[in-house]
């Protein structure tokens, strides 16, 4: 579904990503793990057109999406749920969700999609008129995920959804990600919560200093000495 080939990118003259290649197949949850500053968000932002690539290509559904603007990539069916939630704090919960349905095709179906999203997140419905700024971190993450679903995406790229949340809420976030997959949405999950992430994912890539240093199915990764030492503290 998504294929990244030898991608290099960075900010100005500072190169962050070095020949990164990865692949996400339809129906999978693929994990991308790595420490702070490894370049995970930079990779995601390059895929969804927020940053230009220096070299390499990105294909989605067999077609190159290189150089497309973010809104074009969103229209193709990639939903990027950004790091730090990035909800529109001065808009109501409902308006945030509507913004998620902004692409023309999604806008036509937004009533139905909204109903489904409210079924997944009943608390959003209860508080649909409230300004999003009144939400706690966990609620904001739920809103960001609900908003990300409003475009009826084929692929969701979720950047550190559990960051800064209480353990109970983290559990909830992971359950929602699994139920997204059950609805047929393919997922690329960026996380630092390595153990839980590897438990719900099919395959994983490990990014260190802007380079992929390991890839494979999650069972293999969980058994690897490097992962145990560097990420699981064992």
């Amino acid at each position, binding site marked *: 579904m998504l294929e990244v080939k030898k991608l290099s990118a960075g*900010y*100005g003259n500072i190169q962050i990503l070095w020949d990164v290649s990865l692949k996400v197949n339809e129906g999978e949850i693929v994990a991308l793990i790595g420490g702070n500053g490894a370049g995970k968000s930079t990779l995601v932002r390059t895929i*969804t*057109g*927020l940053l230009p690539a220096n070299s390499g290509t990105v294909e989605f559904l067999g077609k190159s999406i290189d150089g497309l*603007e*973010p*809104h074009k990539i*969103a*229209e193709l069916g990639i939903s*990027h749920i*950004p790091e730090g939630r*990035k909800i*529109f*704090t*001065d*808009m109501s919960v409902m*308006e945030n969700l*509507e*913004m*998620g349905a*902004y*692409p023309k095709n*999604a*806008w036509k179906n937004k009533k139905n999609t909204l109903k489904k999203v409210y079924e997944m997140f009943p608390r959003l419905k209860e508080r649909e008129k409230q300004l999003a*700024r009144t939400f706690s971190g966990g609620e904001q993450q739920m809103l960001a995920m609900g*908003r990300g679903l409003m*475009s009826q995406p084929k692929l969701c790229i979720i950047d550190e959804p559990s960051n800064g949340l209480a353990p109970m809420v983290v559990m909830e976030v992971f359950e929602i990600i699994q139920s997204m997959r059950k609805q047929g949405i393919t997922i690329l999950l960026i996380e630092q919560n390595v153990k839980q992430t590897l438990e719900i994912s099919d395959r994983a890539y490990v990014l260190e200093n802007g380079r992929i240093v390991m890839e494979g199915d999650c069972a293999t990764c969980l058994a690897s000495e490097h992962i145990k030492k560097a990420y699981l503290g064992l």
Partner: protein
Amino acid sequence: MDLFLNIFIGGLLIGGIYSLVSMGLSLQYGVGKVYNIAHGEFLMFGAFITYWLQSMGVNPLVAVVINAPLMFIVGFILYRTVFTGIRVRSPNPGVFESNGMLAAFGLYFIVQNIAVLIWGSTPYSYQYLNTSVALGPSDFHLNRIIAAVFAIAIGVIFYIFLASTRSGKAIRAAAQDTATAGLMGVDINFVLAMCFGFGAAMAGIAGTLISVCYPIQTTMGLGYTVIATVVITLGGLGSIPGSFIGGFIIGIITTGVAYWEPGLAVAAYYIIFIILLLVRPKGIMGR
């Protein structure tokens, strides 16, 4: 007491025009991130187009129908070519803001030059509904009352557009977080150009309304750019309701100062501006 009521009503009347000019600058600066020093030049052009049309027998208020779309198109194209060009070449938003402002400075001089060549720098005026009507304790010119009502109506219509349409919501989202709005599917280059165009159209409409009430001249623009800058600082950058309310507040304050000592009206803007930057840089509606 009558004096206060007079200042209040007079302030509301001029405040309507200030609100309109300021909402325009707020769209250009708060959303489009271009501090458009040349904002008042759109206003001046709008005023002169209106003058020209009324001299051919067109009702000056009807001139808005030609004026506003024309200014929108000029503003839109200007953003699409010059400012989008600068934006994509800027390594970060800070560089874009400073280079955009410099380009707007250049635009200001270019427009000034052309306007002075065409119209010189003497005042022009015409008569339109210059009768007096009683409003509160004293009389006010009918044209000023109509101009204020017109400006308020435009402000309210624009607010409803922002609150309830798909494009209006895209503008609000882009005002808060441009990159994230792009991720939602909003064509950012298009929406920012649209905001710049709407800002120019508002300045153009304000120009029409000013020409209905006061003499106009080619150097009139910069003063309104200054007022709008104070108003959007007061109202909170990018907040349309803030600019709307702020316009009336500044209108009332300056009318009051002018009653007391007309020579201090301009100094009053700057005093308010500097105090605001020190005390509440985010404005009354900013967060």
